[in-house]
């Protein structure tokens, strides 16, 4: 964390290399988070780029105050996703796998088999907004529970409860069997 703090400090002073390092560290995570939230690869690419451009333009206003850089960056991504979804109401445009589209009526049993991102996007649509956010931040963003709590403005206990209920719901939706 100390390393990241000094990187952010340098980035705030317009050190290109420091910002480039932060970019490399979070690029994949932000891309995954946005992909899962909006379910469209092309739009996720555009928005991922925009997140970093926005971060670059507002880095000088970033202050630690107990909020880690990753939480600040994911906040930017979250706000962008919310704006995007507000502007457009249509459903995710990943090519939908028919067997999964039908899974609500005739659940496909999943154990060792793989699930792809399209299937996950569809499954998460059945969760509450808060549960979706926890899954996206925790599994796509790979953030620890403490940071998820800070980004969502909730206590760690509340996020753990949401995480629990989200995984239970996903298990039912995906019909995971032992």
């Amino acid at each position, binding site marked *: 964390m100390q390393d990241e703090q000094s990187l952010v400090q340098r980035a705030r002073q*317009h050190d290109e290399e420091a910002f480039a390092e932060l970019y490399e560290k979070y690029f994949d995570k932000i891309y995954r988070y946005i992909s899962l939230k909006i379910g469209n690869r092309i739009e996720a690419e555009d928005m*991922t780029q925009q997140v970093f451009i926005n971060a670059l333009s507002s880095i000088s206003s970033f202050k630690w105050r107990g909020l880690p850089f990753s939480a600040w960056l994911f906040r930017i991504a979250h706000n962008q996703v919310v704006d995007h979804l507000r502007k457009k109401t249509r459903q995710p445009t990943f090519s939908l796998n028919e067997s999964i589209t039908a899974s609500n009526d005739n659940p496909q049993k999943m154990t060792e088999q793989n699930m*792809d991102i399209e*299937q*996950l996007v569809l499954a998460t649509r059945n969760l509450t907004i808060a549960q979706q956010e926890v899954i996206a931040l925790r599994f796509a963003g790979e953030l620890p*529970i403490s940071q998820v709590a800070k980004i969502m403005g909730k206590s760690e206990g509340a996020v*753990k409860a949401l995480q629990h209920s989200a*995984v239970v719901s996903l298990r039912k939706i995906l019909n995971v069997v032992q």
Partner: protein
Amino acid sequence: MNKEFENVLDDCLERLIVRGETIEDCLNAYPQRADTLKSLLQTALLTKNAAGIEPSPRFRASARYQFRIALQKAASSKGSFLSVWRFRLATALTTIIVMLMAGGGLVVATGNSMPDSPFYSVKLAVEQMQLNLTFSELDKARLISEFTGRRVSEIIHMAQKGDNDRVIAGTNLLNNQLEMIVGLTDYTNNLWLDGSAIKESGQMVPGTDRPLTTTTGLIMPPPLVTSLPPSPSTDAVFQSPLAEENEAPSLLTILLQDGIDNSNALRDSLSTVPESTQPALLEAIAVLEEYYDAISGTGD
């Protein structure tokens, strides 16, 4: 009770997501909860794997390049004098060096120098200066594509000499230049590089299932086939009136032809290098072909 289980589940998820431990590790840590935990952790593992998608190499390279440009713009507009000063000094110094060498005919000598030559750093400096003095993004892409041919020759030369380290260093340099090409071609809004931008025009590229025009009205290129040279019919596609109006298709032809030439050169050299450098050479081939797949739209 519920809170306690939520803590246990969170600990297991931390192990699974962040530390890369297995479900069995978690179950062994909490044997009394194993029955309840198992299906939840299986769900979590499925979720983790599905969410772990990778950005395509084309997007990664293009985004990185555009971010670098934004960084440089931000640095110069916000008064990062160090960065601007460094750039100007480097350009001025390289120009002076090249002008001095040109008088002695050294530019020609450095042009053929290999990575183990004392003139090699001058060769790279000259290339950088050429790039600095090239203002069109399309011309830059062409120039860098030309440089990739030199990198390939250097990689082959060093592989034949059994110098593994320099083959790897050359591959890194090649990788950077290929990333720049992908970034530059995307930067110039040549959306024909991205199949997603295709508009349904009804017309198709001969011999393919790809539409002829894109949202920019540019001609779609044929897919890259590394084992075959472009056919005359391919050229005909590029020489349509639309192609004359836009530089992009001819640029793509050049990039793809360079890709084929470079790939063939590396593959041909495989049998001529010592066994010790063959893995590094294969890595160079993989790097090269991945990027040309990205450019041709077959890599995503």
